[in-house]
């Protein structure tokens, strides 16, 4: 039963990792941009949530109403103002610029919020649990997983059933020809980044409710997100969810064997899958 419990808890944890990863997956899929600052943007969203909850005295989930559009606007501005200028045939400039952005974000947050660990107070939601067949499942992890599934489904639906999604895929296929069809790729990229950071906002709030955070933890979230994307296969959003689940299960099962192995066993599972399936489990894009 303990092992089953570890697997179930790991699966639910995977939902959070999928939320970390969905934005990365989307951005890479549309514009082949690897965003090194993604983890720090998640932390930024958590701090935005912190400010809103403390100033307005609202529940963190209610703060999403403001944090999601705020991150979306930041995403569009960031893409149009900075990241579009780095895109081209060379992969290095976007890596360097987002790395620099990561440093700036971390230090900016440090200046404003100090290095003290913070947490979003979600009241009873944090400790509430339901008993399912002998297992005790936290309401928060269940909620996070449900949100992750809903977010992935919504992104998938946007991609394949809306004109915006059609534009995303067309620009991803061939930027010049898409431009000839009247699609301004700079604007489309801006919208993609806005959508990605809107998802990041949800990830940041769920992270902040689940654990304490400080300005330095972005890098770790980036790694988990990356691993989920790569395990699932590039360009496949449902694959990203499965990647998150595999990572989460590997971590909780590893922790069950020895508490010190939690993070390590996640990385080992990632390495193992990379060795066997270098393109991930369900790739849509050949890298």
């Amino acid at each position, binding site marked *: 039963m303990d092992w089953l419990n570890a697997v179930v808890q790991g699966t639910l944890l995977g939902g959070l990792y999928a939320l970390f990863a969905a934005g990365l997956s989307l951005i890479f899929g549309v514009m082949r941009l690897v965003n090194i600052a993604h983890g720090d943007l998640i932390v930024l969203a958590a701090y935005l949530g912190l400010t809103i909850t403390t100033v307005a005295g609202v529940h963190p989930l209610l703060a999403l109403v403001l944090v999601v559009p705020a991150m979306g606007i930041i995403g569009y501005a960031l893409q149009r103002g900075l990241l579009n200028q780095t895109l081209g045939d060379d992969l290095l400039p976007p890596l360097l610029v987002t790395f620099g952005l990561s440093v700036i974000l971390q230090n900016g947050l440090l200046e404003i919020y100090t290095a003290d660990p913070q947490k979003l107070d979600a009241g009873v939601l944090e400790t509430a649990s339901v008993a399912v067949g002998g297992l005790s499942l936290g309401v928060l992890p269940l909620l996070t997983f449900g949100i992750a599934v809903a977010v992935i489904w919504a992104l998938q639906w946007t991609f394949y059933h809306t004109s915006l999604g*059609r534009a995303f895929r*067309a620009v991803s296929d061939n930027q010049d020809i898409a431009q000839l069809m*009247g699609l301004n790729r700079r604007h489309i990229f801006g919208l993609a980044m806005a959508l990605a950071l809107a998802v990041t906002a949800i990830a940041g709030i769920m992270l902040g409710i689940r654990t304490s955070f400080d300005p330095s933890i972005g890098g770790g979230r980036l790694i988990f997100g990356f691993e989920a994307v790569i395990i699932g296969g590039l360009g496949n959003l449902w694959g990203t969810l499965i990647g998150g689940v595999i990572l989460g299960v590997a971590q909780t099962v590893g922790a069950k064997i020895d508490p010190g192995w939690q993070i390590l066993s996640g990385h080992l599972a990632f390495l193992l899958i990379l060795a066997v399936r270098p393109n991930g489990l369900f790739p849509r894009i050949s890298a």
Partner: protein
Amino acid sequence: MRDHILQMQGLNAHYGDFQALYGVDMHVGAGEVLAIIGSNGAGKTTLMRSITGLMANDAGQITYHGEDISRRRADEVAMRGMAMVPEGRQLFPSLSVEENLLIGAQVGRKGPWDLKAVYELFPILDERRNVGATSLSGGQQQMVAIGRALMANPDLILFDEISLGLAPIIIKDIYDALPGIIGEGMSAVIVEQDITKALSVSSRVYCLQEGRVSLEGVSDTVSREQISRAYFGIE
């Protein structure tokens, strides 16, 4: 001047230090079908890239509907009613046939062309509307590429090497269909290496050679000799 939908004056184009076009002067009359011929490397593709805005040019060199579009981006030019059937079809592989056509309508211009009209023109596309565009045969892909350009309801449509890589029977079908496609009030530019085909559907012709206009004439009256001299540069 007013009758010219598209005008190029002293058009130069560069790729870094390499100059691909030297002072090209051309015009397309309203409702006219123009052919541009020339061998590989004569500058035809560069000319297309300049006109459509995929390449930026110095101000004042390209005028469309009386407006200087030399420095406009491709999407801005498309919004003004210019559409292209690009060389090699260049369909979007992740999009279905119908989605490819719908992307063409992205510019939101009103006119006779919509999904229904394109499916009437090419019934085979209606049957295969939901399959991936690149799983079609070459000829059917060309139909999608033409349909995609028509969906924009353009005033000026550019056909870039539409016979390239297709079987002769398919090329014949497509050229037979062209007069019906280039309907009332629409102007067209046909860029071709197949000179006979280009001359048969056009009213005027320009020949490019090493980035310069080497011949300008009326399609029905230019002689073989004139063309081969302009095409190959034989004096």
